[in-house]
């Protein structure tokens, strides 16, 4: 470690601006994040995943512009045509003659919206729950964590199905609504982050720098969100990334089972479900199915890469 006063001068040199330039010492400011970025960039799978995600999600986000046909365009003269370059039907057409690639692109956009929304909402909520539970301990911790345990023990898919269909019956206008579904999903996804954040808060609240912050007059909220929270960002980012993948898979499963996103919105899971009835049109199953797999695979690679990059206890980078 550099010790700029170790040059043999007076113990406390009268220090003015530029005095160290004379000593020829150069200080390069490097943050934890810059080390993490370097580690991430050396993680080959993570980079591959990131590139894949950028391509797939980029295409989904720009589906209005790059899809060859508008959503809902049908051509009854050209139904169930296999993949072809003719008319840019690269993924073929479905039983109404609609372009499958167009639908997959819109489906990706749905997945992207659901995944990001669920990850953000569940991370923020889980973080709040975990922070309060871990910081205050005792009764608050007990109540919050027992609720968390309860949510964790629920059979998620069954409850989601029931809940989703209940909402659909009660408020028919919300049936198949993307944001309602995302909220329901987020209601299940916050538990993991809550437990992780609680664990970190439990250990960090005993640290001396927290005591030092307390001794300098910081209140509870200031200590929680200014002093402890930055220490938990690593695990939160990793978990949030993995939640994107989890949410996309679960949304697809729900849509596949008919209780997720329905028309006019397109979902990859719903596309696969429709294709079930037409086994001869293999492209209707393969392309949306493969897209789901690719998205989740890429998300998990990125998540793993982030975990390796942000975990300060693990300096070694697996590539």
């Amino acid at each position, binding site marked *: 470690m550099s010790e700029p006063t170790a040059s043999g001068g007076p113990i406390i040199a009268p220090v003015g601006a530029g005095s160290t330039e004379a000593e020829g010492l150069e*200080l390069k400011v490097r943050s934890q994040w810059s080390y993490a970025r370097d580690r991430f960039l050396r993680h080959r799978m993570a980079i591959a995943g990131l590139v894949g995600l950028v391509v797939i999600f980029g295409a989904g986000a720009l589906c209005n512009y790059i899809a060859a046909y508008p959503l809902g365009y049908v051509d009854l003269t050209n139904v169930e045509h296999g993949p072809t370059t003719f008319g840019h039907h690269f993924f073929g057409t479905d039983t109404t003659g609609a372009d499958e690639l167009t639908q997959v692109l819109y489906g990706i956009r749905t997945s992207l919206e659901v995944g990001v929304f669920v990850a953000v909402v569940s991370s923020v909520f889980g973080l709040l729950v975990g922070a309060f539970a871990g910081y205050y301990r005792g009764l608050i911790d007990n109540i919050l964590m027992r609720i968390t345990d309860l949510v964790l023990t629920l059979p998620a898919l069954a409850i989601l199905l029931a809940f989703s269909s209940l909402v659909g019956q009660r408020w028919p206008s919300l049936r198949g609504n993307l944001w309602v579904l995302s909220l329901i999903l987020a209601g299940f996804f916050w538990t993991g982050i809550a437990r992780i954040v609680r664990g970190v808060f439990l250990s960090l609240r005993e640290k001396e*720098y927290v005591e030092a912050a307390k001794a300098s007059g910081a209140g509870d909220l200031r200590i929680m969100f200014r*002093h402890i929270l930055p220490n938990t960002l690593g695990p939160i980012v990793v978990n949030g990334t993995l939640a994107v993948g989890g949410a996309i898979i679960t949304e697809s499963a729900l849509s596949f089972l008919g209780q997720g996103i329905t028309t006019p919105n397109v979902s990859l899971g719903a596309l696969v479900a429709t294709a079930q009835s037409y086994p001869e049109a293999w492209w209707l199953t393969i392309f949306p199915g493969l897209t789901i797999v690719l998205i989740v695979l890429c998300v998990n690679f990125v998540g793993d890469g982030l975990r390796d990059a942000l975990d300060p206890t693990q300096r070694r980078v697996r590539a």
Partner: protein
Amino acid sequence: MPEPLLSITDLVVEFKTEDGVVHAVDGVSYELFPGEILGIVGESGSGKSVSTMALLGLIPQPPGRITSGTAMFQGRDLLQLKKKELQEVRGKEVAMIFQDPMTSLNPVLTIGRQLGEAIKTHFPDVKNEEVKERVVSLLDLVGVPNPEARYGQYPHEFSGGMRQRAMIAMSIANSPTLLIADEPTTALDVTIQAQVLEVMKRVMAETNAATILITHDLGIVAEMCDRVVVMYAGHIIESGDVATICRSPRHPYTIGLINSLPKLTEDEERLEPIPGAPPSLISVPPGCPFHPRCFLSQGREKCRTEVPALVPAGDGHAAACHFSEELVGYQSKYSKGAEVA
């Protein structure tokens, strides 16, 4: 005599543990005057830190409990303040320097941001540029070279001595009137200790803050302090100005402490330890807590039955020993040369 800045009376702090109640601080009283540096000396577990942590409400409750006592600071009893009022006092009027600069700084915040936090906690409306300016000048004051660049660095990029300087800068960020330094140099090696003590001296002169310096190093006390309080097993057993205590101590424990220091001017083969071990604070010996280890108490009934009170032993000097008159005229091995540290 000027008005004391801080006056602690009969402070009692206990901790409930599974093995019983720990009497960490048992009836401690002392005063601190403006601009003064008071040393609190004692071995580990003598209650030196706890007695000051209690002032700022930093004792975890439970298991800790402040059973009695008052701590008057600028007309208010610190021990009776509400949480919000206490937060106002902490870091603004009373600031603390912690022992271990390695763990007292948050590893994920830059030094500049942490020092800025100390200011912003109490003055949330100050503009960010002003905070930065102040932080840079503070770092400059404590002798951190190239403070502009150091501002954006993380604690792991600082050496131990530099971190302790940053901690000192943080403690004086809001110009407190009382500074509590809890073993500020214990975690540092000797050469860095000297530098940090120099910085502390300079900072104290600059801010004119009254300081409580907690240490187990008599050398540091002799070097830095005006007055000293010696603690043993949660009690104050002797207090007075530094020169008096070092040259003519009136309590056998203080004598033991001084005699256990090696003397540089003589060739000493062995150190002279105090026989025995400090008592468990769960079952403090009856009478004088020091009597099982004391060379004066052997066979004397009074030492085993009566807790000695702190009685004046001349000009500002007080000792809690039944037989302290027998030590009148006792010369410590540092008394002749007056050469203490």
